[in-house]
């Protein structure tokens, strides 16, 4: 673009957005760092305590346990969502009308809020009035405990998260699959490649950027599973589903140990921000942006 006499908008056009975002988006990151060195019980002024909160972190079994559960949950969610979203996304990208209709139904969970989904599933999984009661009757099981079961509870959450977020990732893959050049498939067909071969040799490599981006969204988005867990099990039974963000929330807003909770929060910011920055580096914004426009 050649330089001209055009008057260009200056910093003042960005200033309101920056100021606003600075106050509510960036300042909290700095403040949470500061708070992690204080003792603060919610009201009054935070009191400087140095490294006390940080020193307590490694000894907190719930932090270690919470990290493990968070990572397990994230991994299970990735393992279940990615193949299904990829398969359904590519499938729904096909031109057939029936696929369009079916995928329109698949998208329906996107319309419900996290709170709504959690409450519907909680009622549905009720041990006495929900599906487990009937299933255990048919199968003659000794219990119909799902959300209160030490290992089933986590799987139930993985499943509900899958139910909620699969359509979103499917949407990404659907859009990306439509961008794959036809000619690649036609060439492969001439070579006599089977459908499965075409999927593995053309579709998957062509969608690798989408796979990376969608995976990153799942990793970073695992922070939002917090709401689902809070509403469904509140971390229980015992500690079975106590993911790290929930532990932070409990320490902050139930136990009123806001300083200590801030130390956990810093850990979360580092994990969440670190992950997404890593991916931004790996994939680049321009690519992600252009893919988004392809929606």
């Amino acid at each position, binding site marked *: 673009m050649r330089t001209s006499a055009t008057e260009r908008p200056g910093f003042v056009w960005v200033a309101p957005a920056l100021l606003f975002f600075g106050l509510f988006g960036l300042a909290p990151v700095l403040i949470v760092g500061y708070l992690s060195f204080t003792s603060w*019980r*919610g*009201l*009054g002024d935070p009191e400087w305590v140095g490294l006390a909160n940080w020193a307590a972190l490694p000894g907190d079994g*719930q932090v270690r346990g919470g990290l493990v559960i968070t990572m397990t949950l994230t991994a299970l969610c990735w393992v279940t969502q990615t193949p299904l979203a990829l398969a359904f996304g590519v499938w729904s990208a096909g031109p057939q009308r029936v696929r369009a209709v079916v995928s329109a139904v698949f998208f329906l969970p996107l319309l419900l809020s996290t709170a709504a989904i959690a409450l519907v599933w*909680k*009622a549905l*999984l*009720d*041990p*006495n*009035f929900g599906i487990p009661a009937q299933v255990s009757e048919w199968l003659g099981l*000794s*219990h*119909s*405990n*799902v*959300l*209160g*079961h*030490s290992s089933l509870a986590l799987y139930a959450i993985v499943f509900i998260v899958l139910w909620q977020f699969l359509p979103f990732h499917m949407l990404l893959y659907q859009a990306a699959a439509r961008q794959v050049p036809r000619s690649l498939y036609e060439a492969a067909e001439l070579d006599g490649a089977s459908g499965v071969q075409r999927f593995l040799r053309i579709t998957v490599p062509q969608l690798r950027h989408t796979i990376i981006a969608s995976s990153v969204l799942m990793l970073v988005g695992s922070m939002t599973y917090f709401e689902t867990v*809070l509403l469904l*099990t*509140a*971390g*229980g*039974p*015992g*500690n079975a589903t*106590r993911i790290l963000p929930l532990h932070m929330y*409990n*320490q902050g*807003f*139930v*136990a*009123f*140990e806001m300083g200590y909770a801030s130390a956990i929060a810093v850990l979360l910011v580092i994990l969440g921000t670190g992950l997404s920055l890593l991916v931004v580096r790996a994939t680049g914004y321009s690519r992600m942006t252009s893919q988004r426009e392809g929606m």
Partner: protein
Amino acid sequence: MSRTHRIRVIGSTSLALSLLLATGCGTSGPGGGDAMQVWALEDAAVNEIVEQRIEAFNGTQDVPTELVTFVNDAYKQRLQVALGSPNAPDVFFNWGGGNLAQYTQQDQVFDLTQALEDNPEFRDAFLPSVLDVAAIDGSYYGVPLLGVQPVVMYYNKPVLEAAGLEPPETFDDLYEAIDVLQEEGVTPIVLPGAQGWTQLMWFSYLVDRIGGPDVFQAVVDGEEGSWEDPAVLEALEMCQDLVDRGAFGNNFTSIDYDNGSASALLANGDSAMFLMGSWDISRQMEDSPEFVENDELGFTAFPVVEGGAGEPNAIVGNPSNYFSINSDSEHTETAVDFLVETLASDEYVSDLIDVGQVPPIEGIEEQLQESDHAEFATFTHGLVSDAPTFTQSWDQALDPAVAEAMLTNLQLVFIGDITPEEFGQAMEQTR
């Protein structure tokens, strides 16, 4: 109308869990001025009654009194900050027990012992076990202002009858009932174990029955080793034993109190017994009116543990809330007058009864007979009247951080993930 009130009360028992209540700073701070300030929790029904009493009181005084109300849990924090500052209230609402002790330790609460001595009729109007919750080291620092809410054992009469059982009076009775009921295909006891405070009711009652009230007092006082007291460990073992016997069925960790399923399971006969706060009667009235009207809902005291050191008729629950006076107040005399004239007055007590409360006042049986669920109200009142001690819900009495850890660890004991000894060790570390 008392519905909203009771719901609030349900909430306040589960404060430590009730996440909505978790935050603070709602109402703007109190203005200074010469008025005498009374701080209380927001509660439409009760606020109105207190307002009326204040109005009546103001007619007789030079110093005007005003009521300032606050949203729930933020209040504790706000009060802690305000006491000792120029913006402090003159009269303040509190939970008694450990909550009140926090303030007395800082010498911020006016000692009411002398005032009670001077007004013996006023003092004797209250049920001793409830008044005693506001006694710290032998001195009285607060006066009850709301109704009592002990934890009681509800049972389904037809279900027990069909199994040929009487409501259990001792743990031996209870164990027998558990075996018989299981053979009948009934879950002996419904325990909404998705929420830790329901398990706390069993645990704290057992500690009291086995070791008496001093065991918990030691915990509140932060004494070293108090979480590893033999009575604590034995109570936890008994909890695990109940789980192993199948007392709570196989699904208890999934059952939720808030969504009403526990109360429904008792009402529809899937379960025979239910240990819950006295507020649950309103939920049954609302959700299963026929169950209550047909006199199928029974209630009794928590069973006795044979050989336990605790009193057989001691109770656990939410004794009441209390009004205390700020020791720095310029209006302590007026404040004492206000409390003495108001809290045991006929108008105040009958207004409380009208909104469904059971005030901790002697000799109101007749009035209770005419209230909404007279039989239950009389039973509750009798239970509290006869109780030598009334132990406050532990999650209320303890620091919120300790309470949170306790509820989590307790849940782990109930699902068998940790042993009673490990519970003790984990809780000792929270100190």
